[in-house]
């Protein structure tokens, strides 16, 4: 027999909680009254409508909880619910274990419990189990929401002290409970009319919507006679409650989609949202590329995570051979933004997630962009070479400076020869141009993204390195000084043919003011009678090494 306990009127009824499963005894007439009041008032405004909740309760025999203790536990839990939540919850205790007979809440399926929740808005399936470590109890439970026909994740709540288990049970039901809301506006943010939010609660603890709460939006497509044709969740989209004003919750839309809540939707529909409370379960993802027979696991990709308002992401891990990766339980109790990177550099997919939202594995398709990644790593290798060259040039320039100061011109000549053996700037410019052109061509021919934002940034960085650090001003200055030192009258002679000298033709000559006194890149500006002066330390390129 079913018993109903409208909490608002609980003080007037006799708490006859007689029997859970075989233990609960037959109820009384007040339950019948309550049953009548549990019918959802469809016409009532949603924010003034309480949640009708049907509860199935079972006790694992290994928990060694007797009938009286169970009855007392439920009684105290109801008292706590009345004291802290009050009218928003209308709880209806079922007399038997129902779907929990022979099953744990984890084994429930929506198809199994859906019909049992007919006529109410929520179904709670609670179970008392022995604690795995020996002492105390573990309470487990999950919720079925009739509005979106979703079975929530399994929540576990330790109850280390059996006499105080009611408090743990209340905490469990607070976590199990997922508020329902209607999305009334979706641009730029969203406003939610949360069911039961206008009902008074005795304590702040019992409020159904608080800032920080996260909702997941659902499209409910309606057929004739308001029948539900389809319920579709909006992927990678969450509504994060920023503030609550009365019964209205203002939310930020956090989505991995460009337009998660379009206004133009065909057909009759309702846009609702279901609150989410993270459970202590791992969050599983499987990333795949391709479709159908061509589908391949996205193995070896790096996943990073950051808070919504954080800029710095931390590495979560790398997908395994099957493209799987798991966020551990209690990874975060807030929304996080996950980003999948190819080879740790090329972002492939960014999406929000509430860790612990569901224990189910979510399959996420990605576009691997192998050509873009290959290009980026070629650019990185090129950057390494450039940096190495800059360092080598810096060392040689320092030595040249010292030798020129001491007028050890033979040494200067030897160092200049050594300098000349280094790869010239033009090599790098040509290689960079080749890489860029090849990427453009391939992108155009194959129609695959290669010059992605990251690749373009790498290209720009490489180009900047070449332009900023690989000019030949320093070499030319020392060469000029050396040649003037060798001239009988101390005047400069025409610079020797050098690939380094030729390479400077492609870049504008440095401004005279920035050059060392008495020297120039061509030697033409040098005064004929100027002494073979030591060149000054060139500005910009040769002066500092990017370490």
């Amino acid at each position, binding site marked *: 027999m079913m018993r109903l306990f409208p909490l608002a009127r609980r003080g007037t009824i006799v708490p006859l909680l007689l029997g859970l499963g075989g233990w609960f005894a037959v109820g009384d007439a007040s339950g019948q009254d309550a049953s009548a009041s549990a019918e959802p008032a469809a016409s009532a405004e949603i924010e003034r409508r309480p949640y009708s909740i049907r509860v199935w309760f079972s006790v694992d025999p290994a928990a060694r909880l007797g009938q009286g203790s169970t009855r007392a536990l439920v009684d105290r839990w109801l008292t706590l619910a009345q004291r802290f939540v009050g009218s928003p919850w209308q709880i209806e205790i079922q007399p038997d274990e129902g779907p929990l007979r022979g099953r744990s809440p984890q084994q429930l399926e929506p198809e199994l419990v859906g019909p049992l929740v007919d006529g109410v808005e929520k179904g709670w399936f609670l179970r008392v189990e022995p604690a795995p470590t020996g002492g105390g109890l573990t309470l487990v439970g999950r919720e079925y929401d009739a509005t979106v026909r979703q079975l929530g994740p399994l929540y576990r709540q330790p109850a280390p002290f059996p006499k105080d288990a009611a408090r743990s049970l209340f905490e469990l039901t607070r976590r199990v409970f997922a508020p329902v809301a209607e999305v009334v506006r979706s641009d730029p943010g969203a406003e939610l009319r949360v069911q039961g939010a206008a009902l008074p609660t005795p304590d702040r603890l019992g409020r159904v919507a608080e800032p920080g709460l996260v909702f997941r939006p659902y499209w409910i497509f309606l057929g004739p006679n308001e029948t539900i044709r389809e319920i579709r969740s909006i992927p990678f989209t969450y509504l994060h409650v920023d503030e609550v004003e009365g019964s209205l919750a203002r939310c930020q839309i956090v989505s991995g989609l460009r337009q998660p809540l379009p206004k133009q939707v065909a057909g009759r529909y309702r846009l609702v949202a279901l609150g989410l409370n993270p459970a202590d379960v791992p969050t599983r993802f499987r990333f795949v590329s391709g479709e159908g027979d061509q589908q391949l696991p996205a193995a*070896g990709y790096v996943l990073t995570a950051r808070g919504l308002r954080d800029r710095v992401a931390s590495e979560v891990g*790398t997908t*395994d*051979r099957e493209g799987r990766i798991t966020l551990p339980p209690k990874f975060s109790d807030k929304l996080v933004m996950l980003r999948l990177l190819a080879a740790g550099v090329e972002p492939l997919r960014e999406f929000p997630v509430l860790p612990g939202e569901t224990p189910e594995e979510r399959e996420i398709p990605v576009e691997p962009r192998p050509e873009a*990644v*290959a290009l980026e790593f070629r650019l990185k290798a090129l950057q390494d070479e450039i940096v*190495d060259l800059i360092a080598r040039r810096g060392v040689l320039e320092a030595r040249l400076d010292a030798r020129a100061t001491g007028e050890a011109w033979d040494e200067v000549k030897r160092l200049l020869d050594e300098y000349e053996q280094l790869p010239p700037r033009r090599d790098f410019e040509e290689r960079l141009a080749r890489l860029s052109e090849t990427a453009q061509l391939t992108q155009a021919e194959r129609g695959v993204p290669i010059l992605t934002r990251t690749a373009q940034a790498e290209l720009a960085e490489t180009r900047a390195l070449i332009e900023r650090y690989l000019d030949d001003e320093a070499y030319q200055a020392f060469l000029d000084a050396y040649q003037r030192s060798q001239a009988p009258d101390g005047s400069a002679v025409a610079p020797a043919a050098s690939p380094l000298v030729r390479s400077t033709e492609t870049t504008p000559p440095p401004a005279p003011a920035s050059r060392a006194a008495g020297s120039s890149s061509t030697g033409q500006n040098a005064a004929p009678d100027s002494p073979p002066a030591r060149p000054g330390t060139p500005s910009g390129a040769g002066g500092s090494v990017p370490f």
Partner: protein
Amino acid sequence: MDRTLMRSPRRSARTMSLLVTFGSVVLAGLGAELRGTQLPDVSIPANRDLLRDPPFDRLTLIDGTVLFVDPVSPRPLPDKEAIRAAEAKESPRFERVGGLLVSKAPELNRDPSDNAIVIRTQEDEPRDYYVKITSIRSADYFDDILLAEALRRAQSNDFDRAFELVLAVRSRDPNWKGLRETADRIIFLEGQHALDRGQVDDGLRLLGQLYERAPDTPNLKPLLAKGYAGRIESAIEQGSYALARRVLEELRGLTPDAPEVDRMRQRLISLAQRRADEAERLSGPDRVERLADALRVWPNDDAIAERYREAFLEAPVLDVAVLDVPRRPGPFLECPADARVMNLLYRPLLAESSEQATRGELPGQIAAELTVGDIGRRLELRIKEGISWNDGSRSVNAIDVARTLTDRALPSTIGYDARWSNLLTRVRPIDETTLEVTLRRTPLDPAAWLLLPVGPAHAGRDGLVWTPSGPRPIGSGPFTLGPLSQSSARIDRADQVDEGTPTLARINERRYETPADAVAALRRGEVSLLEAVPLDQLRLLEDDPDIQVGRYRAPRMHWIAIDGRNPVLRNRSLRRGLSFAINRKELLQEGILRAPLNDSTIPSDGPFPAGSAADDPEVPPLTHDPLLAKMLVRAAKQEMGIDVIELTFSYPSIPSARAVASKLVEACADAGVVLKPVERPQSDLERDLRQGLRFDLAYRVAPITDPVLEIGPILCPGYSAPPQADGLGALASARILQLLLQLEQVQDLPSAREQLLAIDRETRDELPILPLWQLQGHFAWRARLNGPPAEAGELYEGIESWTIDPWFSRETP
């Protein structure tokens, strides 16, 4: 005053009449022998440090006055009795007057320097005095005092101090009377002391030196004989029979008539005979080894030698010097030593991935046929009939193969392979000899995954079968594994062999501490086969007419593995800095080859052998630039915000790694990275690495025969480790990890080659490992071993046809 007075023999009645009246310490306990040699017997002042304080002599005048003076001259003083007699003769103190002797009046005007010496007192203000020699009752010379103190110290077993004192005397006057006798005495005492304390080698060495210097030293010969006998006993107890024989020969040369000579000789002969008698109760290789033991004790027994030869011809035994012995006897490949012996113990499912093998035409494999269906996703295996397990329990069947294949997909088993686990969907035995394997996807070469040693299904999780004598590895190969230790492994010919029964009855693998020991063992003939020839000794062995040298088909790649689970090592600049710090060419030439580079031994620029299909020839070589290395390491430190980088560098106990480990440490230290070197046996190190255990840097060596399958474990040691080990996390570059995992999905050869080239190219830039060099590996064998080919893929290739002539080294220690 003339200080160069002629010395006269000082030993007169001086020491005889010296009365010890002062000084705090009196030399006591000198033996009768010492007194018999009339060594100086002087009292030693206790308030002076004889080695630090200024030298002194101690004079006792006839009136009892004791003076500490600077060393007098001449040394020793002239004989005062002779002076006195001369003076008396020159001016008799009595003159005969009539029939009476009348005392003569003193001559007051004599020169004070006559028959006198000048002494300088050792006071705060030194003063010089004339002292008539005849006024000196006794003189204790500083040298004698030193020698006396040295003897006293030796008596107290303070031999170091004693020899310091003796050396001090020698430095003052090498010809000082009594110096040699004292030194000999001290050597005698020290030798005796060493023998008493059981330090036989030290004692014999000292007494031997003394014997060369003074063979007539009293009691020396009996003491030597006793010491040598103890040494021989000790050597026999330790099993060092060659040493015992050598010591016996030395003893015979020293004291041929000593009773110990015959006693020890008989002891060795009887021990050898006893072992030979024991051998008669044995058979096969056990008998050979017991007779060899007897010959090791006493090789000159011709009768035993003949019996050994006969026994050896019946059951040949091969002794092999290896880099390391296997650790775990199950059918799992955990280290290079396992790979060496695995095919001897367990037949593989397929011997090769060739078509011939898939048709079952190769001997020594279990599969009779491999059929590939469903575009490579379904494999049907038929098992050869009639192959028995070596315990004789039953024949190999499909259940055994199914167990082998499924074991490798279970993370809890030793032989787990994450790649195989990911590939395998189902194994289903169809009947006794047929089974079906379903794969998740089509691998590039399905047969390559079946080159596995097959163990019996009735074995435990560790691959061992419980027998009445305990758990044993039971395979179907031509050999079975005997006792294992850290330094040796015994492999016996199996009783139940169905095809290709090998000639060799036993293989004894031995690990030597150093490469030089292994080479010496081969040259002595203690072993007949050497697994790895140190390259710096290659020429030596090639020039030996009794030794032949072969080469391994695939070059050995050497590299330093990097654990990316250490966040420091994920830093790209640091890895580049470490690479620049290594002077590959110099280390190779000076550390390993000790000769110029040749075509087959070159620095490497990547994981693949130069010229192989997977090697990109366009990849530029890795250069050495210590300055750039410093700058990159400094940059890495700045990026990570740390001041000091300390890493552990594990390297195996193999010749090439030992030769360069310290230089690698120095090179990295110069660049600013502190490496803590840790040497480990190769099997232990490789097993830990493959299980995914954490490390920092590890020196690794391997040949690469199948780049597609082997590149993963090469770049990442824990590549196939169970997921809980986070083996993939060890790969320091996400890019390389991605390329490797993509390679696993490749299904055609051109794509695989392209992917391998990309890996080779990007490994040069990303440096998930530090490539070092590729070396041509060599093995060597004594000419009495017939069969090893000049070029082989593995050490025991074709061992079924090998033969060995009986031979025994009389010089074997």
